[in-house]
């Protein structure tokens, strides 16, 4: 089960994400973001696409997370696909040049069938945090607020 929860923010919506690894964290963050917009259970993984996001020198893990989510929003809006599954195939969060590569799955938007909640405009940097706990087996957590 993906581990994320909505958090209260007065004007927007945020998520808190937990995971056992950076890859799982990024996958769960993507699932959390799209669950703001629609019910993931209503979407089938019929189409597959490969994407990669690469940071520049000085990109930290928080910015990489934002860039990853921005890229997914771009695919959603421009290709008109609902995304429901994310499989990270490669991720680097420590070295200077950070990156994430993934297969993403979903299906074409069908307005006669799909029901939507709230549109996400963008991930913000407000209260943005990615941490690895020294306790609890090194669990990864992230908090991100979205402009909706």
């Amino acid at each position, binding site marked *: 089960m993906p581990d994320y929860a*909505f*958090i*209260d*923010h*007065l*004007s*927007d*919506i945020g998520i808190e994400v937990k995971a056992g690894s950076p890859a799982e964290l990024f996958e769960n963050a993507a699932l959390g973001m799209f669950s703001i*917009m*629609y019910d993931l259970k209503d979407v089938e993984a019929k189409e597959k696409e490969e994407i990669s996001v690469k940071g*520049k020198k*000085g*990109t930290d893990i*928080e*910015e990489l997370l*934002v*860039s990853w989510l*921005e890229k997914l929003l*771009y695919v959603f*809006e*421009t290709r*008109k696909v*609902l995304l429901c599954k994310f499989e990270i195939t490669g991720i680097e969060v420590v070295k200077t040049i950070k990156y994430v590569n993934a297969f993403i799955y979903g299906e074409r*938007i069908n*307005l006669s069938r*799909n*029901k*939507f*909640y*709230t*549109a996400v*405009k*963008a*991930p*913000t*940097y*407000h*209260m*943005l945090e990615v941490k690895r706990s020294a306790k609890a087996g090194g669990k990864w957590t992230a908090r991100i*607020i979205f*402009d*909706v």
Partner: protein
Amino acid sequence: MAGYNLKKISDFKWEIVKNIDLGMRVPGIIYADRELLEIAQEEKTLDQVINVAKLPGVINASFAMPDIHYGYGFPIGGVAAMDLEDGVISPGGVGFDISCGVRILRTNLSAEDVAKKLEEIIYNLFASIPKGIGSKGRIKLSKTEMDKVFTQGINWAIKSGYGWEEDGYFTEENGCMEGANPDYVSKEALGRGNDQVGSLGSGNHFIEIQKVTEIYNTTAAHVMGLELNQAAIMIHSGSRGLGHQICGDYLKVMQRSNFSNKINLPDRQLACAPINSPEGKRYYGAMVCAINYAMVNRHCLAHWVRRSMETVFGKSDRKLDLSLIYDVSHNIAKIESHDIGGQVKKVCVHRKGATRAFGPGRSEIPPAYKEIGQPVIVPGDMGRYSYIMTGTRAAMLESFGSTCHGAGRLMSRTRARKEIDSGKLKKDLSEKKGILVLAASLGGLAEEAPQAYKDVSKVVEVTHKAGLSEKVARLEPMGVIKG
């Protein structure tokens, strides 16, 4: 944030005393009565007002309008003017929805005329206006056409057959702001925006048929062509995916800049660059593209509103007098001339969830409104009121000619989703208030419920008493379409 000192200046003006230990370069000024101030304190919005007061080059104060509430980086309802030489420009001080704004069309129809055909109007608009998540726009543009939208603003739209020629006179910046540079707009932003011109969006965007239920200033109302019981149409939308992407792109650019690495940003969302730096200039050029795009967006939406009304009433838009009263933006940064200590100086005014409210005599406002001041449109929630106000000379001296933009939220979206049933909300609005609401996303409607917002009447009253704007008319919703 502990350690700030709040001082009462008047019943509607408070000062967060400048505190160097907190890193403040200027004081914070909040226009609010005690009740609105206490809400802002509880929400910790004043922390955000203080954070803006720390930005390099901020002049006079970090301002908070009466609808102030907690945002991200800048508070919503925040205003800050920056020195052009040593001040910064901040994408977060403009917002992701660059030039989100609102326009109002008058009609020569009475509320009764509209009531007889309300269902037909609303269903026609719902069918004709692109809106909501995943919807396709009616206009898809090539790169060449997008560049024209960026550099020509609504002049492109008029040449392309949308709207009336005189609409430009009644739009801020005459419908085309100078300084757009398409070279600074990323391909991702172009990709998101090229099929969204003339689309409403979702969330708090709307098109609303309204009736005028009170006139406070008969002279100003007469000049604007507003009278009691008249029907009007309000449109609230912005720069769509294009603006969202531009903001995101430049937040990254500025965070990576040497400047950002040197200053201690209290919130990453406040990432900024000197206005005169390469990063600052590029953001400004891209931001103006988004501003012109947003004005074109609302212009095209108004075009289709006019077409719908023609279909329903069987008369031309001219015969229905569907003329534009005014169009304002409330997420924007502008280079403006202001009196600072007796000298006229150009500054960069950030308005994040705040509206320009220039007073009588300003050259930037249409000749028709020079004597009364610039119209200010203040939309409320879908169950209560919206207001038309005018800018004042006092606002020019107090807040760099700025005022409120809406009601401000009272309840978070997650709490609204849990506590409010969208279906019941829609039914109650219809049965108890006769307001017909059609929403593309019933699931998102709860977040826009009246009880999720502050009472805009209260915000407008405080704004009026603080002298930032004067009340002209109050309008009530009759029918609403949402994405």
